């Protein structure tokens, strides 16, 4: 277990569940100890628990169980740590190593080391690919990609998905339900799959930028490397721990896009957090702060697909256009891009922003003088997710249990139900919700550098996490602003670029975009109730949580 992964560092507001199925299933009965006194009666609950092997829990186990909602301090993420990355670099030097860097990670490191976000990107590249970095002491990475390009692909198709779903009216199309909920946050996806499966039809089918880029790297390069898909090792550097869960998803493997038999590998083999990237540097004796701030001169690699190089090129215009003055948010700007797209389709419409109860819940209403075209909402953090989920839940699960003698109560309940319908806006009118599990969005991920971290360059520390986060957000927005400058019709250009890229991607691989860009979700059964009678849950409770 990674030393830095502790309860203190996790701020994604998701905690371990009541009971993990794993220990219950796998703990073997204690072998009978050799009795020192054969007349001694050993009570079952006092039987010595010796010789028990430690329970092994992998992320895949966790994904198969809703005992825990998601990653937590109790989960051993030994398969997704910087040590695992180093072990693979050492053990398989023949593989092609690719790192995918999130813009939020770059913003966090830029703030911690007092450099611009672009310089932070160069330093990360130096760290992973150059002799000044980890290559000085062994195998390093072959190249580094920024997930910004994949983000543009994602927001473009997210807008398409929402507009298509809008044509189906209230019920959406193809069994989709409105509103569409963003699926880029793996914490939220896991939460829905395990605790709110009824809402799965709302989830966007689009892969996250990390997953899209992972698929792109493997699908475009595996024919060029020895051992095919197994010959490529992709590492994501992400702002949160939950991205590790995404990396481990069964849906996001080569099995989804490679025809025929053969070993299935993950599209992203390993995910480390921003903070773990620094631990990786330290493990190879590299001080990140002293790395050169210019991009490394990498030898031209003939195995690198030219198509992938277009993803690396920094000249791509961003699609986070400036039709509105709204900030794109800290989580890849899905909502704003979708809003812009809808505004473009309805030239007479305008955008109106309605602030919510707190800064993590904001409504964006697109309307013409006559009617409302779409209502989009930003919803970050567990408390706001609770309100969203409660309002979206089908009436059935909110059905009121019968109380007392039913006949007399039915009539009295009606006015209440009616009042509830009338009061407040129904969420059926929502078109899209950009949901993220972390308050403050992705720049505030649990895997980011925190305000009191020892690695922060002297003089750059902040008094509170809030103040620190403000600076990280500033760094994050600075990159999008640079790219936007002077691009009036950026949206259209970006759209063309993305379309060309995806078409060529389909041509090169012979795989349709349905498989390259989209994915699916499944209900994670919580069968705790079936397997354990309440009595044993009670016993478990009294042992684990200190009783009543």
């Amino acid at each position, binding site marked *: 277990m990674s030393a830095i992964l502790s309860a203190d560092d996790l701020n994604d507001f998701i905690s371990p569940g*009541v009971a993990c199925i794993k220990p219950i299933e796998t703990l073997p009965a204690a072998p009978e100890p050799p009795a020192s006194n054969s007349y001694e009666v050993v009570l079952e609950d006092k039987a010595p628990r010796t010789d028990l092997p430690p329970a092994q829990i992998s992320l895949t186990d966790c994904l198969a169980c809703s005992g825990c909602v998601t990653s937590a301090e109790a989960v051993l993420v030994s398969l997704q740590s910087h040590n695992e990355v180093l072990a693979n670099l050492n053990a398989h030097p023949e593989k092609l190593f690719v790192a995918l860097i999130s813009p939020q990670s770059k913003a966090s490191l830029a703030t911690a080391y007092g450099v611009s976000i672009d310089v932070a990107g160069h330093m990360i590249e130096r760290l992973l690919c150059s002799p000044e970095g980890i290559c000085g002491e062994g195998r390093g990475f072959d190249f580094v990609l920024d997930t910004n390009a994949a983000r543009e692909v994602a927001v473009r198709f997210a807008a398409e998905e929402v507009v298509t779903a809008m044509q189906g009216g209230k019920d959406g199309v193809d069994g989709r339900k409105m509103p569409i909920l963003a699926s880029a946050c793996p914490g939220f996806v896991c939460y829905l799959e395990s605790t709110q499966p009824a809402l799965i039809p709302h989830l966007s089918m689009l892969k996250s930028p990390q997953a899209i880029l992972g698929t792109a790297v493997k699908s475009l390069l595996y024919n060029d490397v020895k051992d095919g898909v197994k010959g490529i090792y992709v590492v994501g550097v992400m702002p949160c721990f939950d991205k590790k869960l995404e990396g481990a998803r069964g849906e996001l493997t080569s099995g989804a896009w490679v025809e025929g038999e053969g070993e299935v590998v993950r599209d992203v083999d390993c995910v480390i957090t921003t903070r773990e990237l620094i631990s990786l540097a330290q493990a190879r004796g590299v001080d990140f702060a002293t790395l050169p701030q210019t991009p490394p001169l990498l030898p031209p690699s003939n195995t690198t697909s030219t198509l992938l190089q277009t993803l690396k090129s920094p000249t791509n215009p961003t699609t986070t256009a400036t039709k509105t003055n709204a900030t794109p948010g800290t989580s890849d700007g899905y909502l704003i891009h979708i809003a812009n797209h809808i505004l473009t389709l309805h030239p007479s419409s305008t955008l109106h922003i309605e602030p919510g109860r707190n800064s993590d819940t904001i409504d964006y209403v697109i309307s013409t003088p006559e009617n409302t075209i779409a209502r989009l909402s930003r919803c970050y953090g*567990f*408390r706001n997710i609770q309100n969203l989920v409660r309002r979206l839940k089908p009436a059935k699960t909110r059905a009121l249990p019968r*109380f*007392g003698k039913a006949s007399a109560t039915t009539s009295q309940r009606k006015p209440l139900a009616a009042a509830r319908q009338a009061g407040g806006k129904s969420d059926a009118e929502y078109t899209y919700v950009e949901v993220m599990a972390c308050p403050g969005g992705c720049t505030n991920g649990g895997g980011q550098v925190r305000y009191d971290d020892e690695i922060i360059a002297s003089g750059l520390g902040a008094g509170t996490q809030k103040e620190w986060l403000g600076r990280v957000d500033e760094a994050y927005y600075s990159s999008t602003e640079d790219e936007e400058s002077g691009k009036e019709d950026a949206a259209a250009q970006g759209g063309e670029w993305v379309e060309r890229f995806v078409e060529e991607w389909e041509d090169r691989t012979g795989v349709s975009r349905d498989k390259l860009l989209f994915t699916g979700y499944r209900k994670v059964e919580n069968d705790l109730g079936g397997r354990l009678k309440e009595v044993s849950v009670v016993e478990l409770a009294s042992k684990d949580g*200190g009783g009543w």
Partner: protein
Amino acid sequence: MRLQKVTSVPPQAERVWQVAIHPTLPLIATASSDKTARIISLQTYNSLSTIEGGHKRSIRSVAWKPGLTGESVLCTGSFDATIGIWRRYENDLDAGNGDPGDDEEEEEWRFALVLDGHESEVKSVAWSAGGNFLATCSRDKTVWIWEEIDEDNFETLEVMQEHTQDVKCVTWHPEEVLLASSSYDNTIRLYREGFEDWVCCSLLEGHTATVWSVEFEKPASPGYREEWGSRLASCSDDLSIKIWTRTSRSGSAAEAKKAPPSILRGESIEENWVETSTLPQIHTRAVYNVSWSPRSGRIVSCGSDGRIVVYEEIPAVDTEMAEGDEKKPPKTEWKVMAEIEGAHGVFEVNCVQWSKRWDKNAGGENDEIIVSCGDDGVVSIWELADT
């Protein structure tokens, strides 16, 4: 003085976890393992109605919403991880002492809605003084704050994960929007509404085992002294009952003078609380509950050892404590007024609450009784007798 039993209400099928006294009407609500909540008259001590059918597991906690007229709203927190809100019109309440066997009564409780979100057993529920906010806590280590934005439409305002273990109890300050929670992690935490979030404004450490319950002193209490500020009583598995006093809070005039304004820190809402008394230790096993009377200022406690104990504060001699700039609230002594063993036979006593006396023997506004409940499913009524 001694504790004398007035009467006992016939037992429920299973243990009663908690009793809650209605803020204005002569009613008790119980929380029971039999998945029901029972409403008992404080005038006749008869059972008036039973609220059932809403929860799949034990009801662990109940709370009456304050500040209502003409209607009663009861909140139930259950081990099934949900919270129920129940409503009943109170137009005929005065008739409650008339015919206790009247079945019609029962049907007037309406299950309004269920609040879910907690991942495991709900341990305690509490309404804020004005009834605007509802706080709930759970074995999932979280404390939730809910607000009713329109009738029967609740929003989650905050989910706080400050405790590292099971949270046992939540309680609100009688006047301020200040929430306290206590936990299996041995600590008490206080929360206030900040600029945009609810934040933990104080951490009270001193107990060496689970803090089972906490309760603020009411300003009406005779022992309340404005100059020393609010007090909080806590009881624990470490057998002790402690009194904590607030010594400072930012925003107060004194504090503002002391600390220069800081742009970096923003408006701090931290509070300082210190332990100012430890009550005489009578209990020999875990102390589960304390109740602080607004009428007499007395404290009553109960616990796993089956005892009910009443304490009274020895009035502090008004010595000048202010020396230099450091003002410290006086440490006061408490004495035991009465105690009884085996209050519920061999069973544990889970909860005790002071209540105004409403029955036919009531001797004025300040006459009071103690309501207790235990693992025997019985609710008992006690009075303090002179002999």
